[in-house]
């Protein structure tokens, strides 16, 4: 198990390197220069020497390949470099905002899991009945409603119904759970809806497949209570694919965050990302993408491990 995990972790490295390389050069195609933004962004009329001096100071005058080597060497030592905008370590910039985004993501996941399982199961059991259709509408809705709009609508409704808006400054959950949740529960809803929908759909379809399996017929032939047939025999098999999907959906979750944080003005990773894109803060962008990619890879690893826990057919390598 441990060995396997380590092996898999090692396997993720090439992927991450690929991400880093691809990203680095993709970004360097972006026209424009952060120094210009800094010095002239607000109409300052500084002379070219000043700009050059600044670029030199930030080491942006060096040939691309040198910068690249520098960057990769940094990565190798686990150093994400310095934000070109604030000139603080990228990792610092990220960590400040990570807690919030992470919490929203987790809330969304919890929300999704809690809702999707009963939803999907009901739809499968009452297939082609009105229940199924309602669930189908709800879930496809989840795939269709833009999370940022959903967020806006939530805000609108809160305003219209209670003339109340969530607080704008972040209080960690361990300091004041109420304040914390009253701020983050809404964005979590906004991004969680899709998450929930996708999982529910997966559960439905895989449960349908499982229910058609021979061993379900066997169970019935044994005279097992219908409740048990579903809970013990069917569901356990059906949940596996759902877990995978949750892993893959993580990519969408992040996307949801990027836009939703705009709507709710959350000072999180998504917000930071949009800012750094608009400022050409390449180092920060690289740092964040690599971190997110890392998350993604890890999560899918965890999913595989979970698989092993649920499915005896899958053995831990020795």
């Amino acid at each position: 198990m441990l060995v396997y995990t380590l092996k898999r972790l090692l396997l993720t490295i090439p992927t991450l390197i690929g991400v880093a390389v691809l990203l680095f050069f993709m970004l360097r195609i972006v026209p424009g220069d952060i120094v210009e933004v800094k010095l002239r962004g607000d109409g300052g009329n500084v002379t070219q020497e000043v700009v050059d001096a600044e670029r030199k100071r930030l080491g942006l005058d060096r040939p691309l390949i040198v910068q690249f080597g520098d960057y990769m060497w940094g990565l190798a030592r686990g150093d994400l470099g310095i934000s070109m905008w604030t000139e603080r370590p990228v990792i610092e910039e990220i960590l400040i905002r990570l807690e919030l985004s992470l919490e929203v993501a987790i809330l969304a996941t919890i929300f999704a899991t809690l809702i999707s399982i009963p939803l999907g199961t009901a739809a499968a059991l009452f297939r082609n009945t009105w229940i199924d259709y309602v669930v189908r509408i709800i879930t496809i809705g989840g795939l269709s409603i833009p999370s940022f709009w959903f967020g806006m609508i939530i805000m609108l409704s809160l305003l219209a119904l209670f003339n109340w808006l969530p607080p704008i400054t972040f209080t960690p959950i361990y300091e004041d759970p109420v304040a914390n949740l009253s701020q983050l529960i809404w964005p979590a809803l906004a991004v969680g809806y899709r998450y929930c929908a996708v999982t529910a759909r997966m559960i439905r379809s895989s449960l349908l497949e499982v229910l058609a399996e021979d061993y379900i017929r066997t169970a019935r032939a044994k005279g097992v209570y219908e409740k048990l047939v579903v809970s013990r025999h069917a569901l356990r098999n059906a949940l596996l694919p759902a877990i995978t999907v949750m892993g893959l959906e993580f990519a969408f979750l992040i996307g949801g965050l990027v836009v939703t944080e705009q709507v709710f003005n959350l000072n999180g990773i998504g917000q930071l990302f949009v800012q750094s894109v608009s400022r050409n803060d390449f180092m920060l962008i690289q740092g964040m993408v690599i971190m997110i990619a890392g998350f993604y890879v890890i999560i899918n690893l965890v999913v595989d491990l979970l698989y092993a826990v649920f499915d005896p057919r899958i053995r831990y390598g020795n």
Partner: protein
Amino acid sequence: EAQQPKRGGHFNFAISAETPQYDPHGSDTYATLHFSSPFYSTLLRYNLSKFPEIEGDLAKSWTISPDKLTYTFTLHEGVKFHDGTPFTSADIKATYDRLRAPPQGVVSNRRATFADIESIETPNPTTVVFKLSKANSSMLDHFASPWNTVYSAKDLAADPNFPRTKINGTGPFTFVEHVKGSHVAGKRNENYFKKGLPYLDSYRGIFTLQAAAMLNALQGGQVLAEFRGVSPADRDRMVAAMGDKLRVEESSWTLNLLVLFNTEKPPFNDVRVRRALLMAIDRWGGSQGLAKISTLRAVGGVVRPGSPLATPEAELVKLPGFSKDMKAARAEARRLLKEAGQENLKFVLWNRNLAMPYTPAGIFLVDQWRQIGVEVEHKQSDTAPYIAAMRSGNYEVAIDFSNLFNDDPTLSLTKYLSASKNPLNLSRYDDAEIDKLYELQLRETDLQKRRGYIQALEKRLFEQAYKQPLLWWHRIVLTHKTVMGWKMSPSHNLGQDLAEVWLNQ
């Protein structure tokens, strides 16, 4: 509101952007000033009650030689930096040397403005003498610039870039903390050299990056003020929401957006085309409409309307692009285009990707030009690519902006100098006459004559239609009624040291 100021209390206000570094010398964004001003003093400053009158800050008094070449300042005694080191004329010298001739690796955006300073002498700790090479009618304004925060010679000697990341000033407040992505905090400087100031015990500048968020905070009382300015829509909404708890102060703004042509790119090398496009813009109508939904409002020439040197409306309407008879103007525009063989002109309009007020301006222009049969593709891009395009000159038409802190023409007019004189001239034209007029107004010390030169320059500029202010901004500041002592001004860069702000509760 002639009340006796109350001492004490904690003040939260919003800053709608977070500065990447602390040093105003190397910055042009108000984010830095709203962040740093309370910690620093300047040599002179504007008296916002009688703007644009200038008063002393660190300087107790000053004299100017008749030939306008020598400026002598007498400084306050007993001024101390936050770290306790006494303030002397040496610090002024160090600061201004850093501004006019920054050492290696130091960014000074004010280099050009102080180019005329020949030498700085410090005969004694409380006297500093500036000697100029040429007379400069704007010099006093430069000394009053909020960007020229005074640093300690000691610190600069230790590290020329000290002020980028650390703070040690003579200002009314001392630095407490800067929590990234959250806020900056300061507390009263007990031995501030102006007795009895500041009133506040402490304050927090909270970064609110979304306008909506800022307004929510204001409404919820999480912040009591935002000093940059909001859009009319926001104002109306807040007034509706908060009624008489809210104070609304308005003023025309020292900012404007300009229509900018790349005079090297045909057909925009043809004055008729440029002219036609400017004439097609219904500024007077547009200003009424845009005033409802954006921070754009006043119609004006190269100098802020309403300021002493501004061109009066009666004169303005005679200039191309400012006519009130749009039917005629548009007809003329079409004629010019036809004449230039450009009836069905197509081009790309570059614009910055900022919701307020750039996007509305862009939408407005596209619509205006459609009305004379010109098809425009509106290209909004982030600042970096935008600037890149502007500087490299591969654009045709763009929305340019100018960001000033006062009405002094010299700063604003440098924008119009020939490309050969000013590499930042994005229209890339060379026009000896404009340069001549600029120089004249700069050296002219008689106000009337100076206005004459400026209007001549303006006329020349608009007839050649290289670039032209579209509309000037309109500043609306919302504060809770409990916030007292803060003074409204035409620039959001001025008067942010919070020394006289107090809370009425």
